[in-house]
């Protein structure tokens, strides 16, 4: 808190800029490097087969760190329509020289039963009960890996993604994408009228229940999902006063 005489508009502006820059550096840049450190420690020196999905920004950072530590592992990239983000991740990982396999979501059961040892996922937001709000399809992967094959599922997320909200399932709060990305039938116009009974749902996010998540990798370390609420309070002490007023 600044002394009264210091509070000119210009000074406050400068302070705000510094604050924003340090937030960017600490909570975003430094955070992903720290996450890479923690997560790469969990990757075995040889023999790991990692499953990743979509294109969370932190995943290539994690894998690059592990590769720099001379760890020998394979990556299986799962992709899904319509966004096909997995392809971009695939190209980025291949550019790093990693051994990659590329599959679509339907082959997930098959591949998980074969050789996968760990699953690395990203998240868009972390709910305060530890469930992860992420790209649509993340829940499918966590379910199959954790429930059937008892594989460790690590969700890599920076602490700025932690939200005080709680969501119980995917429909209550979501975002819709362009339905034409899923299904676009440009055949004949008369079909359009007959198609009044056909609706297309293009959900962009889904909720992974906390029971499927083994650990959440943040810049503070690897935490169980139940600790997310604690972390929320720790990282945002300024919010707690106003929250309980």
């Amino acid at each position: 808190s600044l002394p009264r005489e210091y509070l000119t508009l210009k000074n406050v502006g400068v302070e705000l800029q510094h604050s924003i820059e340090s937030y960017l550096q600490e909570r975003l840049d430094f955070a992903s490097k720290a996450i890479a450190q923690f997560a790469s420690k969990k990757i075995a020196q040889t023999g790991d087969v990692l499953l990743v999905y979509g294109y969370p920004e932190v995943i290539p950072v994690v894998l690059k760190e592990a590769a720099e530590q001379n760890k020998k592992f394979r990556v299986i990239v799962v992709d899904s329509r319509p966004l096909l983000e997995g392809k971009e991740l695939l190209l980025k990982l291949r550019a790093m020289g990693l051994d990659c396999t590329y599959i679509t979501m339907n082959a997930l059961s098959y591949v998980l039963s074969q050789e996968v040892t760990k699953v690395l996922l990203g998240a868009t937001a972390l709910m305060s009960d530890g469930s992860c709000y992420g790209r649509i399809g993340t829940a499918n992967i966590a379910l199959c890996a954790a429930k059937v094959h008892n594989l460790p599922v690590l969700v890599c997320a920076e602490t700025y993604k932690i939200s005080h909200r709680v969501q119980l399932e995917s429909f209550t709060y979501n975002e819709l994408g362009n339905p034409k990305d899923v299904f676009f039938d440009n055949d004949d116009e008369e079909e359009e009228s007959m198609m009044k009974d056909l609706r297309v749902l293009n959900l962009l996010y889904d909720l992974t229940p906390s029971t499927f998540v083994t650990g959440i990798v943040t810049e503070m370390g690897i935490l169980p999902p139940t600790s997310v609420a604690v972390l929320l309070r720790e990282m945002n002490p300024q919010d707690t006063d106003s929250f309980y007023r």
Partner: protein
Amino acid sequence: LRLGRLVSSSASTGSSNQGRAGVFGSADRLFITTRTVELLKSLVGSTRWKHGAQLLLLLRGVGKDLYVCGGFREPAIGNVVRRIMAAVREEVLNMGTATPAAADRPALESMLWAQPTTKLVHRKDSFVEGSPVDQHLQDTLPAAFYTNRPDLKQSVMEAIQEVMSDLEDLHKNINDQALSHIHEKEVILTYGKSKTVELFLKAAASKKRKFQVVVAEVAPTMEGHEMAKSLARAGIDTILINDSAIFAAMARVNKVLLPAHAVLANGGLIASSGSNLVALAAKHNSVPVVCLSGIFKLCPTFPHEGQDTLNDFVSPSSVVDYSELSNELMKDVEFVNPVHDYVEPELINLYVTNAGAFQPSYIYRLLAENYHSDDWESFE
């Protein structure tokens, strides 16, 4: 690239029994099965065989030939050959006695105390010196199979006709059960394109039930799109979703309808790749999973190979475009594109078939009723 058995049998894609079929799934499987029965009917009718044992040998030989020609992709072909062999065995054994065939269904008790009818044959040793099949059959067939009976042909043809009419009435028998499984205002999720499921849903809709269907698009074949269009044309409220939205959508679904590629002896299901995800999501949300299948898809196989049971890989061209492979970075990437998934029997709640509705734990009984245990071996 993982290449499946598709490579070695590429020459046989012109086999007549494939008809107008595509490689997997897109074929009209009922059509293929009916044609197989017709083929067997004409074979049985036109060839000269003296007694039951010769007929069984003939059928077994045909079964092996059909398997080699592409029957490994279509388990229904082998099943229907086994069905007819079982019918032949029944007819031969019944010819001596006056009691009708239906009364000869083995009761649970008599099955418990029955002597084993199969003898262990060391196939690996004996394949050089004549077919181990002959030896196997000759050792175990009772004398009734070797007596020449002129009226046997007639009864066998009748039995084959019965199998044929079973296949013709397949959809009608399944659709008769539609109203007991689909209720008002239900949201039903279906995965994969299937004529059986389509007709089932259309039958319920025609009886004025109002319900919604959520169809998953099933990348990379995109067969869900066809299914959704067909259902929408029939006036059913349809919602098309991506495969990735299956877990998310399951929270709002009341029932899951899965089509079958094959039903295994332990009650497990072989269905389109991705069906296991659907079944798992349904189990998590306590949504009942109902599988629609004809009895002709029931195979006397156990899932010893796990996810590889009755499975194969197809070209990854549907996963990634050929043009993209010109990119240097894509050169050493492995692509996996399996066709089917194995779903455990614990994840399935009910099998709705043309012979009625059964739980997965009852499937072994259907096996005993439809096929003879001596014919269970695969035709490989």
